[in-house]
């Protein structure tokens, strides 16, 4: 069971490595959109500082959604997904390998590059660690929730727009708690409550979404 999991995990990393260009697009999107704001707003340090957490979070959210598009598509189109449903290892467990691999490929680089963008937006340095922590807790949740939407729309020809309509509303709680945590720290309060809440949402997503994803994929296969 764990052997199959690690095989899928390794396979996805290898495939991503061989298709590097596609993987790097969401990251470039993230960097470009964030850097559009200083250009549009001008050198208004106070304003930028104030909206920096929101900019980074909203852009991270959109970049995650973009990157998710290919999560199940190639497996669906080349028939690997059909083969996966016939295995001894439950599909709901196997797909977590795909999601973890996907997060390592797309979510992690996004977090790593964030401090650089934070400087661009004049984000106070004492906020950066909290920002990274919210991203660390938040982006896996985004991937897990987004995967449910992807699994539902993978069989459709024009899944893109429907996907964003489906999953953006579900991203709102994560966004609210993340930005609230940063506001609190900015005003000198503790962000523990918000971070704990984000952790709770993540745990909820980890425990429930694999079953929803597997069920949605089976519907798409039908």
């Amino acid at each position: 069971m764990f052997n199959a999991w690690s095989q899928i995990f390794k396979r996805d990393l290898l495939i991503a490595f061989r298709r590097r260009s596609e993987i790097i697009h969401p990251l470039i999107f993230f960097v470009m959109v964030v850097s559009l704001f200083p250009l549009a707003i001008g050198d208004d340090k106070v304003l930028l500082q104030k909206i920096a957490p929101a900019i980074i979070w909203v852009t991270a959210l959109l970049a995650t959604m973009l990157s998710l598009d290919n999560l199940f598509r190639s497996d669906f189109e080349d028939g690997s997904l059909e083969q996966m449903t016939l295995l001894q290892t439950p599909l709901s467990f196997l797909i977590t390998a795909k999601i973890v691999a996907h997060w390592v490929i797309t979510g992690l680089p996004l977090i790593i590059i964030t401090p650089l963008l934070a400087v661009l937006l004049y984000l106070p340095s004492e906020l950066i660690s909290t920002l990274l922590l919210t991203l660390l807790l938040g982006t896996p949740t985004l991937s897990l929730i987004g995967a449910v939407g992807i699994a539902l729309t993978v069989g459709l020809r024009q899944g893109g727009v429907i996907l964003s309509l489906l999953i953006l509303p579900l991203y709102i709680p994560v966004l609210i708690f993340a930005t609230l945590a940063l506001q609190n720290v900015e005003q000198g309060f503790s962000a523990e409550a918000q971070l704990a809440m984000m952790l709770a949402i993540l745990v909820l997503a980890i425990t429930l979404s694999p079953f929803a994803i597997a069920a949605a994929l089976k519907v798409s296969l039908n």
Partner: protein
Amino acid sequence: MDKQYSYTAQLKVKKLACWRNSQVLFDDLSLDLLPENVLFLQGENGSGKTSLLRILCGFRLPDEGKITWGNQTIYSNPEYFQNISYVGHKNGIKDELTVEENLNLMRSMATASEIKTEVVLKEIGLFKQADVLTRQLSAGQKRKLALARLMMTNNSFWILDEPFTSLDTASVVFFESLIKKHIARGGMLILTSHHDIDLSGLSVNRLSLTN
């Protein structure tokens, strides 16, 4: 002589119906399949052959009817699905992996057979291409790789949907002999094909689906 399969049973399909877009593809379809038997599905395009095979694989749910394996319905019996080797229209191989990586992946996912990857590569004639990315193979070579799935696992129930599309004559002969070995070991097979397949010496049931 290869070892007999340890996991086999009788497959029974009773009064199966399948609708697509509110049209009846087939209904009241019943069939039986015993170990060491072949079921050859025939019918025009769109007569529901693929749908039937996909129902047997569990990708689709039947709209009516019952499917049992041994005495249990297949939906309460995960072992039934694990025992299926399915090669459908889609090859189920990854373009970004090499031929050898694809084969090893097939093996590591299921109850593996004892055959060595190297031997399989030689038998399907892709030994020289072992380190080539699958994307660069021809359609026929990809099909051979997809069919090699049958050799990598120890599953006793094969479901093949148009297995020999774009294969050359020599490969067709090879896979026909593979099918005969499989049946001799007590295996079961359901297939559809518009090609002539040499199944001489096997007990073949033919079933025609009509529109």
